[in-house]
């Protein structure tokens, strides 16, 4: 039987509608109506442009996905093209936390501490199946893995894969950029 190689590079059709993104300004029309706020909103847009184009990630890898994260930072994929190549070792100077790999329950408090040390506005990217919801390590009665990074930090972008390719991480960064440009979001 012959196979038709069609639509290979396309995207999956999701079960849930993923087009609805949580990027809308929660204050909505009220803000738009107030002239004083609108003028400030231009400044906000400018700052958001700056933030979107200068996402410094935290030098921080948890497991195997970190290898793909490093690959994304290296010459072949070069995250620095988008201004995201400045991996800061100190959480105080980072903007994005790339959670790359399995989060064991021993590691969870450390991650939370690092997240708390980051200055706002800050964002988190969950990279790989394990980080999204436990992945292959998720089974009944397991006791070692945090089933989902969003149980410890507020995650903005989810990138599935085991591990995702560097392109997927770059795509995640681009989507995060869109999200930042679209509206303000301060995690305290």
């Amino acid at each position: 039987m012959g196979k038709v190689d069609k639509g290979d590079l396309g995207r999956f059709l999701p079960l849930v509608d993923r087009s609805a993104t949580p990027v809308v300004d929660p204050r909505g029309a009220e803000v738009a109506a107030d002239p004083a706020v609108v003028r400030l909103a231009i400044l906000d847009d400018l700052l958001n442009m700056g933030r979107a184009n200068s996402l410094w990630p935290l030098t921080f890898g948890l497991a195997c996905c970190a290898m793909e994260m490093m690959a994304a930072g290296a010459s072949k994929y070069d995250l620095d093209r988008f201004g995201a190549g400045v991996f800061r070792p100190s959480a105080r100077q980072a903007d994005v936390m790339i959670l790359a790999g399995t989060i064991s329950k021993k590691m969870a408090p450390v991650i939370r501490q690092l997240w708390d040390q980051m200055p706002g506005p800050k964002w988190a990217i969950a990279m790989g199946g394990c980080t999204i919801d436990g992945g292959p390590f998720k089974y009944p009665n397991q006791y070692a893995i945090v089933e989902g990074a969003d149980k410890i930090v507020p995650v903005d972008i989810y990138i599935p894969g085991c591990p995702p390719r560097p392109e997927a991480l770059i795509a995640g960064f681009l989507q995060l950029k869109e999200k930042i440009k679209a509206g303000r979001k301060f995690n305290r």
Partner: protein
Amino acid sequence: MPETLSQLLDDSVLAMPIAAGLIMGALTINVLMLVWAERKVSAWIQRRMGPTEVGPFGLLQTLADMLKLISKQLITPSNVDKPLFHLAPLLAFAPVIAAVALMPFSKSLILVQNDFGLLFVFAFGGIAVIAIFMAGWGSNNKYALLGAIRSVAQSISYEIPLILSALSVVLVVNAMGFTLASGGSIVVANGLDLSHIVMAQDQHGLWFVLVQPIAAIIYFISALAETNRAPFDIPEAESELVAGFHTEYSGMRFSMFFFAEYTNMLIVSMLAVVLFFGGWDGPVLPGPLWFFLKSYMVIFVMMWVRWTFPRLRFDQLMTFCWKVMIPLSILNLLATAFVVAVL
């Protein structure tokens, strides 16, 4: 209008803020460009693209970084030594502006003319050390403290060969015994005056890098260590000390350290140009352009070195300074003194 402007500038109360503002603006542009250049140079050495998406050739990348850093939350950790923690970035930031003002960009374009310009530059370098100390101690963080201790040990160690190698140039300038015609009056050359050093090279048509090659090499290596640049960047060694003395600093305070670091690069390379590469001396193009061109070439070499060599270990660094650099620079100074005395 020009009269009022000159009056404004003559008034010593307003002259200082205006001059400081001008220098600040120029230095900010310089730092933005240098950070962009650093990222591009590193990218090209690693056969990457570097920043491309923001602005043409990614030129606005550092502007975006600056915007972001301005709007970042300023975190003051709970147990820091507050006065020291808050003052340290300002103190790191202030002396570099003063040091730039002393540089002779051309024969006539000198913001602050001083007979002891060379010493002034070194003195301001000494104040920056205290700022690093304050940052490291005030942060109440073990990595910051270790980084500060390393940084200060490194800075005071490498200041010795730095000053000794510069002194050998001063000896040469003084020994030439020439007089400079300056606005009708005859002035005896003074080796500590930065513009006189350049004029000495200009008159003889000989750059001091040819007269004092060993001093030039010692100066360059010490300058790398003074500015905490790789391969001597152990104060902020990422693999051991998180980010060194500025581990706890976020947002604008961190960017002030960043600013100071890159301006320090500019200062040491400008001083290198003055001491060894003939300052504003050059054909066709106007003096200040040559001066900046040469300075940025030296900075390029610093970046090139950074992206080539791995970091040294701390004991290697200290051994290298005290057992190689300092004896070598003292020998060089003695030899220069001997030659000067005999000839």
